[in-house]
């Protein structure tokens, strides 16, 4: 899926939070990324969706940090190269991205699939990250309360699992190019997600490896998340030395869903900023 050629011939993008990404090449992969703010650098690894946007969450974070949100390979307008099939490949990819950007130590944040990846990065490069924040992360097994199956949701089921029933209030984050194109774009992003997480949907090795994490860690669970069970966030907090678990409750009459990042951007940004600012990159 090529970015620039489709941008050249495709109609103008008019959805509310669309911004034009910048481009870099890391280990031969053309990556679209968005960057705003100043101060300590914060690398935000997004989850499997809500791409091609500068979310209000990012804007809120950019008041306190130099926020970088790369598009994960296979998401947004960024290509999915043949050689990226596993989280191990993504760890090396982000090593290349960070070296290309020349950032030095950074704060690391990941949401959902991005949280799983952030954990892998923190395990692989214990000294590189000043702090680690995991938002409703995937990646550990919880046999008593397994995570919902993200590959079989009807529209209604996806609303329940991802939005806890509130999707109708957030259509501007979901409707981009029209029904068919949006469906095909999500399917294409699904291919990247499938490569990475189809089976197993967790990494047993993390149960041993998370002890390697040196970055001070905050795990944020969204209270009414119907995709990631509380036990999963809790398990990360249990396995990462010194980690704290915070649960964000619902607000303004809405449950705090898996995508509370768009429901409560200020509250989520505050939880992240409060944590990361205790550990300046220095």
């Amino acid at each position, binding site marked *: 899926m090529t970015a620039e050629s489709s941008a050249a011939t495709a109609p103008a993008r008019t959805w509310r939070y669309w911004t034009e990404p910048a481009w870099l090449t890391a280990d031969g992969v053309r990556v679209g990324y968005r960057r705003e703010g100043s101060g300590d650098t914060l690398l935000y690894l997004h989850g499997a969706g809500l791409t091609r946007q500068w979310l209000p969450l990012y804007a809120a974070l950019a008041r306190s940090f130099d926020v970088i949100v790369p598009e994960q390979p296979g998401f947004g307008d960024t290509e999915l190269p043949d050689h990226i099939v596993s989280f191990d490949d993504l760890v090396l990819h982000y090593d290349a991205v960070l070296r290309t950007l020349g950032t030095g130590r950074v704060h690391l944040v990941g949401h959902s699939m991005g949280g799983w990846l952030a954990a892998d990065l923190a395990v692989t490069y214990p000294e590189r990250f000043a702090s680690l924040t995991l938002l409703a992360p995937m990646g550990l097994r919880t046999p008593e309360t397994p995570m919902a199956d993200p*590959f079989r949701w*009807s529209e209604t089921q996806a609303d329940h699992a991802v939005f806890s029933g509130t999707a109708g209030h957030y259509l501007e984050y979901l409707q981009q190019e029209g029904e068919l194109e949006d469906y*095909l774009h999500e*399917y294409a992003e*699904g*291919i990247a997600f*499938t490569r990475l997480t189809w*089976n197993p949907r967790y990494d047993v090795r993390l149960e041993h490896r998370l002890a390697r994490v040196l970055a001070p860690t905050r795990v944020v669970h969204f209270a009414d998340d119907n995709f990631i069970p509380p036990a999963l966030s809790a398990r990360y907090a249990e396995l990462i030395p010194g980690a704290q678990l915070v649960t964000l409750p619902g607000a303004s009459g809405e449950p705090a869903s898996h995508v509370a990042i768009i429901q409560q951007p200020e509250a989520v940004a505050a939880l992240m900023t409060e944590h990361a600012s205790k550990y300046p990159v220095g």
Partner: protein
Amino acid sequence: MEFHLFNYGAYPDIPFIDEVENTVYIDLPNRHFDPVRGTWYLDTYLDTLAFGEKLGFDGILTTTQMGGPVGMTPTANLSAAYLAAKTERILIGTIGPILNAYQNPVRAAEELAMLDQMSRGRLIIGLPMGHGQNYHSAATMNPAQARERYWEGHDLMVKAFTEPGPFEWQGKYFHVPYVNLWPKPVQQPYPPVWIPAAGSKITLEKCAEHHYTYQALFSPRKALKRNVATFRQAAEKFGYVPGPDQVAAVIFIHVAETDAQARLEAEPHLMFLMQNLNRSRQVDAFPPGHFSVSSLRGFMTQGGYRDKDISEMTFESTLEEGWAVIGSPSTVVDQLHQVAGELGAGKIIHIADFGAMPNWMIRKSLTLMAEEVIPQFRGPGGRPVWAERDPRVAPTHAEYGAVKTEPEKVPQARVPGIGVVDVRGAHVDELRKPLRP
């Protein structure tokens, strides 16, 4: 024209689709499966296929369906083995093992070689990719890698059949230090292969490249015609024109005394099938990567495999779109001539068991099919291919005796006081002679 009998082997006693939360594939609770009724449904399914020989079909075909009532046979190879034992000469197609469900394709190749051996050379091999629902059910096969892994698996399997072992295979998906097929198939170079394809261009091209039979699935007739055209164009690139024997059409067929009677018998059962078993949600049928984005765009914009909600199809439209041929013998003859003409199909895969249809009704239709329809497509005598020419290799002692050759090496043992003897005659004192000390 060849006629092959293929059934679903479904377990019919399930809730109607509007009481099913997601789909009857994948996660319909198996508490609905009563083991005792199940033995009868399975027996009926297998028995009807075995009956295909007495009916005079050219072949009988088995299928793989897992994790639900759509079919009770999660491995086509097992049913094929049963049928090989129950029948004498009829061709048997296992259509078939899902290569990606095997940890490595040599396991599949071994089973297939064994089947060809056990059936004495009657085997046809189908190599389905597996539909999307299979990927959900089977868990450890990743749909995003499915096609690539499948074709490497296919290439390894073909090499295992055709190249002397042991050899080492170092691939992207499989590293096998010793590929050494024991037994090897009887048919040379290997049994005929059919590839079921819903329209993936790459699949059709590979099918043409290897001179396989393209098994056209279900889709509305216009989509099948497009696919057959793609298949023919692909074959041109490889320098040949495929014959009708390389196109197999899958059709629900029911025969009765009159068109009206056939409709009376078949309609509720066909609707049961279409409304409960043949439908699936988009996410279940198309896990990401199972089709490419461009293939999916094609299905959604040009119409194709299951493009409209099948449960909303009327009886008339299933006939118009070519899913089903239902009527009196002469109606069925006419329609099959039409299908054959339009698609250039030389093989008809006849689905007779419409889900919940009682076996006595299936056999009634099949008997009419065998006596009134099939002979219209054959030469005088109405013989199936396996009656024209025995597909088996030396099936009697006498025939074996006439063709057998001395092996390169004979079984030997060292007998004290004598030396190394050929054990085959060593029970006879005069023959217990040393070959060497």
